[in-house]
């Protein structure tokens, strides 16, 4: 009787902990995956708005491009019109390789008043996606550069 009682308590606790462990493990995996995506999106946005790219005048010869950056020379957070136009001519897969990601992405530049200046990639509904917004100056306007990555 004691053994049966002890086994019953043990099985109940074991079952409860197993379910809790499974739930937390799932939550942990989702959080870690989102955290990793957020870090990638933040890193891409940082490179785009703070760096001119490499070589610095890559927009004049996109075949030599090795690091993607959209900032004008010595102008963090101020995007260069020619670099944005050149970015638009690059193929989607080339840009993914340059960003070092396998995920789908969507990048847009919109003025804070809602006027759309640029977008690349396809935007679609996905709960696992993350978006990072950065404030920049582009085309004489204050704009939001959004980098969305899909899981």
């Amino acid at each position, binding site marked *: 009787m*004691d*053994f049966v*009682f*002890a086994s019953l*308590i*043990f099985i109940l*606790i*074991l079952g409860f*902990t197993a379910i*809790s*462990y499974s739930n*937390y493990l799932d*939550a*942990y995996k989702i*959080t*870690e995956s*989102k*955290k990793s995506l*957020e*870090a990638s999106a*933040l890193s891409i*946005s*940082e490179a785009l*708005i703070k760096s001119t790219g490499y070589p610095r005048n890559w927009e004049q010869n996109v075949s030599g491009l090795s690091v993607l950056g959209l900032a004008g020379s010595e*102008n*963090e*957070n*101020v995007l260069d019109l020619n670099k944005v136009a050149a970015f638009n001519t690059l193929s989607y897969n080339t840009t993914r390789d340059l960003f070092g990601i396998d995920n789908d992405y969507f990048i847009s530049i919109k003025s*804070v*008043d809602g006027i759309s200046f640029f977008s690349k990639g396809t935007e679609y509904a996905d709960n696992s996606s993350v978006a*990072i*917004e*950065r*404030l*920049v*100056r582009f085309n004489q306007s*204050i704009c939001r550069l959004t980098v969305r990555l899909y899981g």
Partner: protein
Amino acid sequence: MDSSQNHRSPVFSRKGQVFTVEALLGSLLFMIFIWSLASFVSNSKTDSWSIAQEKLADDALIVLDKNGTLATLNSTLISQELARMLGNSTSFRMEIKTSNYTNSGFVNLSETSFGSSIPDEKGLSVAERGFISSFNGSVSNYSIARLYLWR
């Protein structure tokens, strides 16, 4: 038969109690591990969000500086631009300390602050930026702007 049962029963019963206590202790340790994991997961969620918020505060100050709004030292104009950039979901408070450089070093000219009152809670992002104001082509004032953001 009876004497054998009487002889084994206390030992059997004691073993049952030991198993139960061991099972409870083991499960308790396991639950502590799971709760620690859950706590870590919820904390790591906050980290990536606060980094993005700090980047947003930093971006806002850079853009205000680049488009010359900060240098005007006009609190109404700066407030309007910040409200446009950040939208309704983000509140802010700005502090600007302005100094003049004389023969005896930096002299404090003014300290102004505007925006909403800073809430007494976590989730506050802060960015700081130094900038200069010019008058007739020469530097007239040195200022430090500190921007607080929260949701």
